[in-house]
């Protein structure tokens, strides 16, 4: 199975909820990443503000940054090769690179385990 790495720009949190508005795109990516991880796909996100070292250590990412500045983020790498820059993978791309079908991703997202995951009285 392929290894997917996503190098995020600096942001408050992975869902973007901490930002000034709600960003549907970030919500979608966070959800998909979460689902794929559960399916056993190796998918890692690096945040610029939390793990800047990763942006130095990864030579390809560092080259892109040096050449095209911060706007080049997010960068997606599959098995060590840069496959996408400047925006997040689409649902099709996620499916293609992870080997998990689009339907499966959607189905997994709809599936409910152990209720809703809330611990404080009742459901969300």
């Amino acid at each position: 199975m392929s290894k997917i790495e996503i190098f995020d720009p600096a942001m408050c949190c992975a869902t973007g909820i901490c930002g000034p508005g709600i960003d549907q795109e970030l919500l979608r990516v966070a959800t998909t990443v979460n689902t794929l991880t559960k399916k056993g796909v190796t998918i890692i996100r690096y945040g610029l503000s939390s793990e800047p070292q990763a942006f130095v250590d990864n030579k390809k990412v560092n080259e892109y940054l040096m050449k095209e500045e911060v706007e080049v983020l997010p960068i997606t790498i599959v098995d060590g090769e840069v496959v996408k820059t400047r925006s997040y993978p689409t649902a099709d791309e996620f499916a293609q690179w992870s080997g998990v079908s689009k339907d499966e991703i959607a189905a997994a997202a709809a599936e409910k385990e152990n209720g809703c995951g809330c611990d404080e009285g009742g459901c969300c």
Partner: protein
Amino acid sequence: MYKLFNPDNIKLTKYLFFTGKGGVGKTSSACATAITLADQGKKVLLVSTDPASNLQDVFGISLTSKGTPIQEVPNLVVANLNPEEAAKAYKESVIAPYKGKLPASVLQNMEEQLSGSCTVEIAAFNEFSNFITDEKTQIEYDHILFDTAPTGHTLRMLQLPSAWSNFISESTHGASCLGQLSGLESKKEVYKNAVSTLADGKLTTLILISRPEYSPLQEAERASRELKELGVHNQLLVVNGVLELDIENDQIADKLYAKQQEALRNIPESLRETPTYKIPLRAYNITGIKNIRMLLKEDYLESQNYKLNKEELPKVKALIEDLYASKKRVIFTMGKGGVGKTTLAAAIAIGLAEKGVKVHLTTTDPADHLKFVVEEGHGIRLSKIDEKDELRNYTETVLAKARETMAEEDIAYVEEDLRSPCTQEIAVFRAFAEIVDNADDEIVVIDTAPTGHTLLLLDATQSYHKEIQKSQGDIPQAVKNLLPRLRDEKETEVVIVTLPEATPVYEAMRLQEDLKRAGINNKWWVINSSLLMTNTQSPLLKTKSLNEIPWINKVDEISQGNFAIIPWKGEEIKGEKLVDLIR
């Protein structure tokens, strides 16, 4: 009725936290306690966690976060934690290793994200818990005193560790709000220790400071209750500024005495169980080491031959006329807690409403006492921004949006991110923006929360403003409109409210500087509760009132004559009395 607060006769714990509504004398009491303990030969460390620290004014020297020994008081070391500076140092330490290794635009992007309120709070709490848990400090000092920030801020800081350590231990995704603060996880033990020290009655006492007045006592009760909920049970109440009559048949002194005694008789039920002490009202200003040292001991009458610059002192009426004539749409009353921002905001609202203007009067003060002061109707609409409510509303909005595209299980994930402290700031901010946005069909008068809090709010506005130009998120129009609107001096006026005393005036000056830096306009100043404007014959009050003159002159100078003065009033200013104020 109460014993004097004198640390010579009270056995105090190692850690002492002073809390109370702004302006009640936390700083003075903390300093006086620190000096008294140091004079006993104890080794004492006094730490200020107030973002708008008063300690520098009191000791007359500049302080650092590491601690400065006070020459005149052997055994006393004073440290001043400036959360903003701590955050800056933190930011620098994160970014510095990458200079040259990553392009400038990337570093800038990192820096912007590290400018959030999370960083400020974390950095502040970090320093604060270092003082509590550092072994060397523990051994070195007999007493460690914290002159804390206004109550709301204090509570938030205290709430951080438990809330955040839950967050950290539950977090499975890593890349959350707290993720940006790398190294936080390793501090978990330190924070945990800090919290358990706070809740340990053998080690820690919470000293609630209040004035013998209705609102501050209510506030003390609130703080007491909230801190008990956080496990801090060892509490003392100190009522500061209790008048002892020194003359018969003086209307002002009698009124003040009666007002204070009534407030004390009606002290909130749950505070009655708390051991209570008093500090008498003093004629002198509580600045300089000499006076601080005297505060818990005795009074003396001292005044110089001060002269007023202006013969006739302007009234609030002049301010309202100017606000009306210049067609201001958004009016803030700003100043330290307890200076009377609420009263003034209410008076301005009534004054403008009388002229036939529709007014929306709103408060962001967590203590919300607007509804005690003014009644709705006659062209005035009342509202408040409640942090907790706003957070809940915002959370629900986000979740509703998330549910459109996400499964329940993933919503739990979003919920986790919603637990971050950033979210609270944003929630409040959005409510604030919406109210200001409505200033099109009504004039908005906002009675803001105490200084530190207010500045954080404004600061959030500013960094927000930078951020939203880049972000693609779904941003309400109201939020986009906010800062340009606040900066437009044709529309917006910030009225700075202060008292004719040293610390409140210094505070207000700093506030004005911060407003300037944020590009926000201030023309008017209001001096509240002036004894000089009364005709008291009490030697104590008269001396106190003459000590107001240099501060009135100072405000005259700073405001270039655009100021109004409100006499000290014997009654709680509400309803009809507010109308008197604007005549």
